[in-house]
């Protein structure tokens, strides 16, 4: 049995736990040529710099903005779609729609971004149609002001269908008798959603929200990395892209590691905190 576990265990030790040690670079002026042993120690200087580096503060602001938009719009979107799908009577129509809306989840970000450029870019379909109606062309892809909206819309487009799976399954688990008795009590369709469906899936919603909170400081790394050149770093630098560009491209290893470490810690604390809060409020929590 231990032979069976060994390859997996080795993986976790080398690629998940060994890197944790690498975080000591956060307290060093790390240089790949000197390695951990000979790189000079700088104490908390990297952490102090985090809170004074304007580029990093900008990245933090962008991250929180994008994350906030996603929690407010992209998180409830699958719930709304699931409620809608759940109200479709015909099983066949429902299945067919599900097949379609699941699809984008399996497409990588490179492809998604390429496709969106074809639709909304300067020579894309949207501008072509606008021109047909005699309207002004809109540069959506390259506009820093609308970048946050664009990114949120892409996330919804890609993941809304996939997100419905869990909600739909949770809705299926609600006993039909509850709806029936609610209907006998003269509760209309909206009231049944409010008093039966939503309470029935509340624990799932809370669970997903807790997990989502853990990644408040990491938003769509690949997605944003791919689109940053089009709008510039002012609008599209996030903590993750900052760590990548400053650390691996810019050679500022210590600072980038410190920023990544703080990001990870904050995420963990948020998950644990939200979990505790959910339990206090009488819910189940994740752990």
């Amino acid at each position: 049995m231990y032979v069976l576990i060994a390859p997996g265990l080795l993986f976790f030790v080398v690629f998940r736990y060994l890197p944790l040690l690498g975080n000591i670079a956060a307290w060093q002026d790390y240089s790949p040529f000197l390695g951990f042993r000979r790189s000079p120690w700088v104490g908390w200087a990297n952490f102090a710099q985090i809170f004074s580096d304007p580029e990093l503060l900008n990245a933090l602001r962008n991250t929180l903005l994008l994350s906030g938009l996603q929690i407010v719009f992209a998180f409830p979107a699958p719930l709304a779609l699931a409620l809608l799908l759940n109200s479709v009577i015909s099983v066949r129509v429902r299945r067919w729609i599900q097949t379609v809306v699941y699809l984008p989840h399996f497409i990588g970000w490179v492809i998604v971004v390429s496709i969106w450029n074809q639709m909304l870019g300067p020579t894309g379909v949207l501008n072509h149609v606008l021109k047909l109606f005699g309207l002004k062309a809109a540069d959506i892809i390259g506009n820093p002001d609308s970048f946050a909206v664009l990114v949120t819309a892409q996330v919804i487009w890609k993941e809304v269908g996939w997100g419905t799976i869990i909600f739909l399954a949770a809705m299926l688990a609600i006993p039909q008798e509850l709806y029936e008795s609610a209907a006998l009590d003269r509760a209309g369709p909206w009231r049944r959603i409010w008093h039966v469906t939503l309470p029935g899936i509340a624990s799932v919603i809370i669970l997903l929200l807790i997990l989502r909170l853990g990644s408040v400081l990491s938003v769509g790394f690949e997605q944003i990395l791919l689109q940053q050149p089009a709008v510039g770093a002012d609008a599209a630098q996030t903590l993750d892209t900052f760590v990548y560009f400053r650390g691996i491209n810019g050679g500022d290893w210590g600072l980038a590691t410190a920023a990544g470490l703080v990001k990870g810690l904050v995420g963990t604390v948020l998950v644990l905190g939200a979990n505790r809060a959910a339990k206090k409020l009488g819910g189940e929590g994740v752990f």
Partner: protein
Amino acid sequence: MATRPIWQEKPSTFVSVLKVLVLAFTVVVTLYPFIYVIAVSLSNPKVYTPGDLLLWPKGFTTAAYQLIMAGQTVPRALVVSVCVTTVGTLVSMFCTVTMAYGLSRTSRVPGARPILLLVLFTMLFSAGIIPSYLVVRGVGLLDNYLALIVPGAISAFNLVVIRNFFMNIPEELYDAARIDGAGELQILWRVVLPLSKAVLAVIALFYGVGYWNSFFEAMLYLNEPRMWPIQLILRQYVLQAEPLGDAAREQTQVHLTPETIQMTVLVLATVPILLVYPFLQRFFTKGVLTGAIKG
């Protein structure tokens, strides 16, 4: 065709129309971009102008596909992607299944609990990009295809999903197999795996899709453009509009616009996913739920 429960009233016309509109909009917005891209890749640029609302190719031609497949860059990248995806999925499935099986037999494996906690902890807190990069560099995987596979070989989430599924297999089946003289490996191979086909199919799909779509690992760890998988070629060629290595050939074929060629590369990068999709779709719900609903 399900029927409406008797207690449920028929929705008003207004609500029905609204529902149909919203759902139709969702479907069109999801599906149309794919149709458009395929249509452009098969269209003759002499006949259509960029941005035309296409449902069907205009001036049907497969010239772009022929040109690209006759070149070097894209076919090579496709081969790389197919190989990395296949080998990666096999490696991932092997490591995940064996470890999940070992950890599912808590009664027979002292120490399984702490190891499981070790795994769960990585879901909560993981080292950042930089320390991970340093480890990959440290073990000498830079410019090696293994760098695309090994550092992400096991997803803790998938591991937990499979383990939970194994835990639900009745103990009697194990006992029966053991009485018949089967060893642990035989039990895994002959009893457990055949019972878990659906869940394994979904997890394999998740891994496969991950490998097929990944570009960041390749960008980080492969400096040699000749080694790049298709997603990285796509990024360079479609998003950054850098010419393919086969530039000379493109110029001789002036009747194809860069856009047509870009869309063709895009289709080639998407098609493999679309091919496996219908076969595995019926397992999605099951696969997502076995792991997700439990904490």
